[in-house]
């Protein structure tokens, strides 16, 4: 059977792939979005939902700028998706706090934020280190262990599952082809001429975008690209719904649009193991109770573990293949925060056929360290 042809193929129906596919479709490209089935390593179903800037890009100011840029694109993205689908993404960007539970944590955080600001140079980086006394006016019922927080105006949060559904729906309703159960089993590459075999048939296009998360590690070499990504497990707890009480998100505690309170999150190097671990869940609960003691009486109604997609330096990877122009790759562990950039900044670059120089530092070539003799 001849392959189904289109202007672009995006491999990966998670937040990264769906945002890019939606962006490509918005630019008029006939786009096919290939996804796996019901069970997959889906970071996009397991994330925390922050649109988060303040912790991103220490020592890598280009990442800080890219993240800030994405946060800036978010209101337009949410409004567009909301208008097209009727879904409420519950986007709020009131600024956000990173709570510090000890003096050393506070000092470390202050030093980190100062370095971020100095690295930002002329781009600026607004932040405040806030002491507990003032912080108590901003957040209800802080625990006595909280000594202060860093705060930036850029931070916010959104319903990540509503985002996933909205991207899929908007993409499909705009004429995009979302193909589930289409795990890639093979493919061939030539400059601006790509063909992939999947469980759901064959597809061909002059452009291909690899956005398969952890799957990119295996896919990339086929298309003259490199994605040395590894899984990092994160566990999250969610409480029952409560009436709105938290006016802004913090790094590890946020109240969703539905009223549930999400408690995050662990960073575990355990390979492809998505089991839950009660000791880690207990540590998450403990930090939440130290931060907000009143959370202790809330019921946890759900919890899960999922795998982040981590490059060796923790930063995203964006590349176009030198050998096979037209093959692009996008990998990151911040598919929510960066959705604005992926849909509205990255997708147009892919349509034009070249990545903007601002993305040059994200090339996987940064990992090509010459081997010492």
């Amino acid at each position, binding site marked *: 059977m001849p392959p189904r042809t289109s202007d672009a193929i995006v491999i990966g129906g998670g937040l990264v792939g769906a945002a890019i596919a939606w962006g490509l479709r918005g630019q008029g490209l006939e786009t096919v979005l290939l996804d796996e089935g019901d069970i997959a390593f889906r970071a996009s179903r397991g994330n925390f939902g922050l649109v988060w800037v303040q912790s991103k890009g220490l020592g890598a100011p280009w990442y800080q700028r890219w993240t800030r840029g994405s946060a800036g694109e978010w209101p337009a993205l949410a409004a567009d998706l909301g208008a097209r689908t009727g879904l409420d993404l519950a986007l709020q960007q009131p600024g956000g706090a990173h709570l510090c539970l000890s003096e050393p944590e506070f000092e470390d955080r202050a030093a980190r934020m100062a370095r971020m600001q100095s690295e930002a140079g002329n781009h600026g980086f607004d932040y405040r280190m806030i002491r507990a006394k003032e912080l108590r006016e901003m957040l*209800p019922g802080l625990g006595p262990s909280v000594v202060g927080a860093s705060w930036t105006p850029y931070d916010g949060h959104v319903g990540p599952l509503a985002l996933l559904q909205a991207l899929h729906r908007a993409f499909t309703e705009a004429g995009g082809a979302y193909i589930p159960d289409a795990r890639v089993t093979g493919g061939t590459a030539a400059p601006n001429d790509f063909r992939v075999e999947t469980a759901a048939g064959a597809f061909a296009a002059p452009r291909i975008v690899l956005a398969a998360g952890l799957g990119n590690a295996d896919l990339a070499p086929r298309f003259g690209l490199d994605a040395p990504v590894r899984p990092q497990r994160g566990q999250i707890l969610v409480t*029952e*719904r*409560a*009436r709105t009480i938290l006016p802004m998100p913090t790094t590890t505690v946020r109240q969703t649009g539905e*009223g549930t*309170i999400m408690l995050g999150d662990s960073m575990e190097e355990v390979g492809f193991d998505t089991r839950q671990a009660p000791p880690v869940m207990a540590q998450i609960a403990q930090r939440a109770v130290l931060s907000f003691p009143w959370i202790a*009486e809330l*019921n946890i109604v759900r919890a899960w573990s999922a795998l982040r997609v981590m490059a060796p330096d923790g930063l995203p990877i964006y590349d176009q293949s030198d050998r096979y122009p037209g093959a692009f790759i996008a990998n990151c562990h911040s598919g929510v925060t960066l959705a604005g950039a992926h849909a509205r900044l990255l997708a147009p670059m892919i349509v034009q056929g070249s990545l903007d120089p601002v993305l040059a530092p994200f090339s996987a070539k940064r990992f090509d360290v010459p081997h010492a003799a």
Partner: protein
Amino acid sequence: MFRTRPDARPATVEVLVEGTPVLVPEGASAAVAVLLAGLSAIREMPVTGSPRGPLCLMGVCFDCLAEIDGVPNRQACMVPVAPGMRIARQRGAREARP
């Protein structure tokens, strides 16, 4: 719309349902006490506010969530009554209490 059968199981435990004393048999759950008190709805949904009563009484459906002795969102069918127990409707999402 429910009644005890004193000949089989005398109602000996007094609990308060929405502040009103109700006599229920020992071994009954808080959800049963709500039914004996004549309340059909035990909670209002946090999604649409619609009224709900117990469905399964065996811990599966979670439609009997109630506030028991001041603790919101308890599965009333899994909580045996005790003398003086205070049982109140769960109205929408609970309050978090700093």
